């Protein structure tokens, strides 16, 4: 790749060396400028991180009290109220999404690392996983809308859970494939040589060796979808009531944030900030905790 520099030199016929001849002071000065700019760029990202977290913490903390966690939202324009139903709904749909998406992802990862290595189907599946990872989350909502909401005739928590599961599926498949791929083949061979069947080798030996990586992938994917809004907009919708039945529109934190933030009522906007803090805390704590644990394992 380095040859290209010389190629262009020859074709243009110039005899200048690859490093233009400039005074030492000028080169030094330019280098210092780049160093400053590059440090500033790193700071830029951090400044925004702290700005966002500070705003969410300050405005959110003002909204979090006992009623926030225990009562239903107030009617439009009403005072007080909480988002207990939305907390419950988000938790329920996230668990459902994990129950559907995680096993599918694990088995796809198993196929990729234990059966499909080097096969054409295996590389096609890898390509598909990459495509699915790149599909915007709102399209998952749109897809489940056409598939489930139209056929069932109404919005439902079930559809919300499925659209979140579609996001977990490729993510877990990818991390499972990567993590199982790190396990040395000698372990598989030893287990098979002792007469263990394939399933026992995979689940008892390979999984055990890769368990912290698998747990990290699963936790991160579940944390990520618990903060997703777009897939729920046309599937779970939202509801001011307690979640009773997954066949009905189900209250959830993220769509509530969207609806309340756009409303003209200051009490609803206050609740939206409370919900924002709750979701951010949840996602960040899980992310930091799993990263920290992985860091411990690595060092």
């Amino acid at each position, binding site marked *: 790749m380095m040859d290209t520099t010389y190629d262009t030199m020859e074709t243009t016929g110039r005899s200048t060396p690859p490093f233009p001849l400039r005074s030492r002071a000028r080169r030094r000065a330019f280098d210092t400028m780049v160093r400053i700019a*590059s440090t500033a760029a790193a700071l830029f990202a951090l400044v925004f991180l702290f700005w966002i977290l500070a705003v969410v913490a300050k405005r959110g903390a003002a909204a979090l009290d006992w009623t926030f966690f225990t009562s239903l939202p107030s009617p439009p324009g009403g005072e007080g109220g909480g988002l207990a139903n939305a907390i419950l709904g988000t938790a329920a749909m996230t668990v459902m999404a994990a129950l559907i998406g995680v096993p599918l992802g694990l*088995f*796809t990862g198993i196929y990729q690392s234990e059966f499909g290595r080097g096969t054409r189907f295996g590389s096609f*599946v890898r390509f598909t996983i990459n495509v699915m990872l790149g599909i915007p989350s709102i399209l998952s909502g*749109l897809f489940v809308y056409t598939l489930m909401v139209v056929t069932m005739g109404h919005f439902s928590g079930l559809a919300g859970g499925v659209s979140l599961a579609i996001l977990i*599926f490729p993510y877990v498949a990818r991390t499972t494939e990567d993590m199982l791929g790190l396990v040395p083949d000698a372990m598989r061979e030893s287990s098979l040589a002792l007469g263990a069947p394939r*399933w026992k080798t995979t689940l008892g030996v390979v999984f055990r060796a890769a368990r912290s990586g698998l747990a990290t992938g699963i936790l991160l994917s579940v944390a990520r979808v618990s903060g*997703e809004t777009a897939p729920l907009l046309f599937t779970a919708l939202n509801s001011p009531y307690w979640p009773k039945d997954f066949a009905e529109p189900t209250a959830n934190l*993220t769509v509530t944030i*969207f609806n309340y933030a756009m409303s003209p009522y200051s009490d609803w906007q206050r609740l939206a900030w409370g919900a924002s803090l709750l979701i951010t805390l949840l996602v960040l704590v899980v992310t930091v905790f799993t990263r920290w644990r992985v860091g411990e394992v690595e060092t």
Partner: protein
Amino acid sequence: MSLRPGRPGSKGWPDALFRAAAVTCAALICLLMAAFFVELARNAWPSIRAFGFGFLTTSTWNPVTRTFGALSSIYGTLLSTLLALLIAVPLSLATALFLVKLAPPGLAKWVRQGVELLAAIPSIIFGMWGLFVFAPYMADHVQPFLQSVLGFLPLFKGPTMGIGILTSGVILALMVIPFITAVMRDVFTMTPPVLEEAAYGMGATTWEVVRRVTIPYGVRGLAGGVFLGLGRAIGETMAVTFVIGNNHQLSASLFAAGNSIASTLANEFTEASEPLYRSSLIELGLILLVMTFLIQIAAHLWLNRLGRASGRTA
């Protein structure tokens, strides 16, 4: 290869079942991808038949007269993504440079984790902060400043409302910086030390080493990072929906309110009760799906070439 794919039957039915489950799940994700295209195309069909190719080239969006064109949504999507990349790519490159070449290892670790944390913040939180905090800041400080300096350009004309394409672009940039930075950092650390040390040995400054050795060596990988950011930014929904302003009019000004495919879907879908309206919105989704699919294919081909060029199998 010592590990042949398992032979069903060789270890009795549990192994056959295990293998069947793995194959089924792998096949399911392929089916799922195909189903996305089929379902969206099927549901978009009434709109495709009604508007044909003109859907892509007209910007009228009128639910009352049932005339729909996707141009303003496509324009907003591409423009906000382009802005995001114009901001994010240089910043990510500089941040990666800082992490790999300049910062002491202890500091680099903390900065890297901070930047990565930005990726963990949910999209809707960027939206909340963008609408209530950042957009007013843009309207009061950044946009008047841009207008006073560059106001002669049509890009920076018009009222400074805060919400609009420019603000969306900046927020999208913040959201993709962690992804692009991570890729670029990896690419930088993969440069063989011998090459860089040779340049240092000839008296090159850090910047000259990066400019003449590190970047040319990793240019394909760096481009891969840009692809990743592109794919992320183009379908981002909630943050954009909060701040883009939801306006179907085309405007040359970056200060003007606009819309993107994803924001139009998020805003209008649940209110669209009329079948043709709904079908047109699904066709917007189909266009977004095709866009992201093409980006993935391009990235795939690009990375395969990268793998061959450096003698590894991708």
